[in-house]
């Protein structure tokens, strides 16, 4: 299926995927450093495993950014 992640088209091999799985597909390792919006609605972190992303959905990842002293992932 096709979805949009941060405004860019992304192809996912399944017909639906949890927010949690989508984060790991996008190599986001620290889920406590990201806020996720699905079709312009924020998803609570406790719902990342259960909320499913489907065809044509738009997902936004927003990461913490401080003032140059903090890091947002373990990359």
């Amino acid at each position: 299926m096709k979805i949009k992640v941060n405004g860019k088209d992304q192809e996912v091999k399944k017909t639906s995927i949890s927010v949690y799985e989508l984060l790991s597909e996008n190599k986001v390792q620290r889920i406590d450093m990201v806020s996720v919006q699905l079709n312009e609605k924020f998803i609570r972190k406790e719902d990342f495993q259960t909320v499913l992303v489907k065809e044509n959905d738009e997902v936004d990842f927003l990461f913490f950014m401080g003032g140059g002293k903090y890091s947002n992932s373990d990359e």
Partner: protein
Amino acid sequence: MDFSEEQIERYSRHIILADVGPEGQEAIMNGKVLIIGVGGLGSPAAFYLAAAGVGTIGLIDGDIVDLTNLQRQIIHTTPDLNKAKVISAKEKIEKLNPDVNTIVYQKLITSENIIEIIKDYDFVIDGTDNFPTKFLINDACVFIQKPFSHGGILRFDGQTMTYTPGNACYRCVFNGPPPKDAVPSCSQAGILGSIAGILGTIQATEALKYLIGIGDLLTNRMLIFDALNMNFNTVKFKRNMDCPVCGDKPTIKELIDEEQAACDLN
């Protein structure tokens, strides 16, 4: 307001702008902007606001100028090493534009003093480097309905949003500061100096737009840029009804000093 001959000349490039004009320049000169953190973001913001003729610029920072600051904190210079950042910045602002009244607060902003300080200003710029203070600024501004610009930078990336009363706040997007163990270490993720310039300049632009009353502010959206690919992306959002400070059932009803990440204490 009657402009002096010198002011007409100094601000002529503003005054000839159809959307600014003498009225817009007067609004800028009557404006009061507080810059919290006179570092990477606060330096360019202070310079442009001073050059624009903002009537009162407040500067709050408890730090002194350190050699590692000079790679990006452009309002401070080598002879300013070990000087209080607010004093160093005040000196530059006064040289650039004697029209500006600069008020300095050489201290950390806390839940105890923030309301007292921000209440006298029209617009607040968050130029801080740590999350507890970013959330404190957000909460205080939501409580007393004060517009502010959030800015964050990291490596080659930056993000910024503007809060005005009734619109989404920083906590609508990020519930609360990241947990301490999620902050890998303060062994400096690093920042390309000019990234701070891009961001701080956008924040100053938002303040000027707000004072003049023109254009669309960065409300209900986050501008995110990645300078390595030079991509600018905007993520739209709405006020979050679950927001702990501005949602339907707020759980935060008084200001708190969120716990500082341990590595930031030294």
